[in-house]
């Protein structure tokens, strides 16, 4: 682990956003502060600022995603950037080759920023290693590894509703094993000083030695939710529901679905979050998803501001 942090330049400034791991708390806080200033832009009649005028942002999606791509697109456009969306269908044989070739080709078209989603962990790191100086890479999700902007918008949401991170107890519930969101949330929470992060999942959905990431592990959801301030639910992918990982969606819901009864074990003012899209009745009961403690829709709103903040800081238009 002697290689320098690939996200920071020689002056310690953010040059790529690849993961929340290994970033100083000051940079995470700066992103959240900047996002706060953009929230007002999003509420205005004319929702545009000229910070990225003349810059080209390429949304490079090797894995289909409407929601994340759209929020990045809106964020870039509100910053007045030119946005190009590319959804690259991939076969497993040619995926990698096209990855660096595609990036080289787009770099030749004078891209300033790549927003990358890929099914393989490490794809964004690989691209960041190969782009020319001055080109920035934002990881919009790589395999099971990281989804830093999702984690940052979650941090924004928590800060918005709960204030000081250093007094919180946070539970992350669901498929930790396959979740890039969970990994990025864990690193962000521990970096920002949350004293207790719990992960709640059946043992088939927990990665090895996850406690080394600085979390405590709980199997019993009701006990794990005891007195928490924040409940972060994860999406369970359809293909994991009936196989060797889990017997059925119904049984999963019984043990790990968030119901009003289970939520009652948390603090009365606890907030409920979900990165979307939700599987109602699988990981979350509609009564909770639409209930008074749910902040799932505000998460989406904050997501645009957070992505605007990341882009403008990377482009050097905002001093963090």
């Amino acid at each position, binding site marked *: *682990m*002697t*290689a320098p942090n*690939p996200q920071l330049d020689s002056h310690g400034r953010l040059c790529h956003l690849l993961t929340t*791991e290994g970033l100083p708390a000051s940079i995470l806080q700066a992103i959240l502060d900047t996002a706060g200033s953009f929230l007002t832009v999003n509420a205005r009649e004319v929702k545009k600022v000229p910070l990225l005028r003349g810059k080209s942002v390429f949304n490079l999606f090797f894995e289909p995603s409407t929601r994340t791509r759209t929020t990045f697109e809106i964020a870039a456009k509100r910053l007045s950037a030119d946005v190009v969306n590319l959804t690259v269908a991939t076969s*497993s044989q040619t*995926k*990698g*080759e096209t*990855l*660096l070739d595609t990036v080289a080709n787009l770099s030749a078209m004078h891209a300033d920023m790549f927003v990358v989603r*890929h099914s*393989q*962990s*490490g*794809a964004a*790191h*690989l691209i960041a290693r*190969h782009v020319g100086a001055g080109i920035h890479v934002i990881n919009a999700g*790589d*395999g*099971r*590894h*990281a989804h830093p902007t999702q984690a940052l918008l979650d941090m924004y949401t928590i800060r918005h509703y709960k204030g000081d991170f250093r007094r919180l107890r946070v539970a992350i519930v669901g498929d930790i094993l396959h979740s*890039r969101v969970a*990994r990025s949330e864990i690193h962000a929470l521990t970096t920002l000083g949350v004293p207790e992060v719990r992960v709640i999942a059946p043992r088939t959905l927990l*990665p*090895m*030695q*996850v406690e*080394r*990431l600085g979390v405590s592990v709980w199997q019993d959801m009701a006990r794990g939710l005891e007195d928490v301030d924040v409940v972060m639910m994860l999406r369970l992918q359809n293909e994991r529901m009936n196989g060797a990982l889990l017997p059925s969606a119904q049984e999963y819901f019984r043990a790990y679905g968030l119901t009003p009864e289970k939520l009652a074990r948390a603090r009365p003012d606890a907030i409920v979050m979900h990165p979307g899209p939700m599987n109602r009745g699988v990981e979350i009961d509609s009564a909770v998803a639409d209930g008074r403690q749910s902040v799932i829709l505000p998460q989406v709103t904050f997501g645009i501001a957070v992505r605007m903040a990341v882009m403008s800081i990377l482009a050097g238009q905002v001093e963090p």
Partner: protein
Amino acid sequence: MSAGRIEIRGATLVDPLSGREWTGVLCIEDGRLLSVGEPVAGFRPDRIIEAHGLVACPGLLDLCARLREPGYEYKAHLESEMSAAVAGGVTTLVCPPDTDPPLDEPGLVEMLKYRARGLSQANVYPLGALTRGLQGQRLTEMAELTEAGCVAFGQADAPLQDAQVLLRAMQYAATFDYGVWLRPQDASLARGGVAHDGEVATRLGLAGIPVAAETVALSTILLLARDTGARVHLCRLSSAAGVDLVRQARASGLRVTCDVAAAHVHLSEMDLGYFDANCHLIPPLRSGRDRAALRAGLADGTIDAVCSDHTPVDDDAKQLPFAEAEPGATGLELLLPLILQWAREEGLPFALALRRVTTEPARIMGLPAPALAPGAPADLCLFDPLAAWQVQPGALRSQGKNTPFLGWELVGQVRYTLVAGEVVYASAPG
């Protein structure tokens, strides 16, 4: 080939077989050592090698070096890899059967041996495929393959999923006392995995290969080896639990041998860093605890030999996200310095450390023990034990330039390599 008379002067002679280290001359005639230590009266060498400051030892034997022929000539070819072997002081090597097509027919084996012989460099011993096409279903014609030159039989990294086929293969091989070389990995437990199932894979979001993939397969192999009496060699151990199983099996009298790859003696999962695809190896680099157990097993003899597991991979196949990158690393030219580094770190004399790449692999291959003794074949390695060099693509003869050791400074550099009394490699110092 008519080898001339060579006299090597001033070298420190290190004989792994006897454990002796002393200074003296080596006289070579007709491809063999004529005398060791003492000059021969009236010996008129055609060539004198001044070797003051160098160590002379038997040439290295590498139990696993992929030459990539036939079938993968775009990754490497025989010329480049044979040249890499002698540059690394390796005078005998075993190439595994995972070529394309696999080494499952006598004709392929004969062609490979013929091509290798034509290059007059290291001695090449193909490992025959245990099953046809490495498919794990039908046995190969082991007798014919042995006649063609196969040293033993194995599956390389192709899984043998059917335990009944494994049992039959061992029974059949045992009938003729052919060696069966197996890398213990349960295919279903390893399915989809690309890294050690531990902290680093969790952090990086890489699919894990649990230690149980090794231990479950090892248990099966050890039980069947006991039942069949087959001469089994275990390839590329990776875990502490695996070393324990082998240690127990040997303590109970089972006749098995095993090896480890040089990379696993020095590296662990931590070296993956930020998805370094050069660390995508088979088996995966495991925890620091596992590495410590491999080193302890190597020191106490539970692990007999160290091999390079040389696998030239082209850049295109490595410039990919970690899981998609082709596993493997170049290694022939790093084997000696990595063994020397292990010896220094553990405070072992060179003679003892070099046993792991000379005496022991020869025993596993069923060859006479290489020795610095009159009459022995003059397959020799002369190296400068103090020369430091940096691992860079330009410093490697192998066509494969990818290795986790890129950028490392290693100590110990080969100056001369002799095969059957011929100088097949000589480098200027510096």
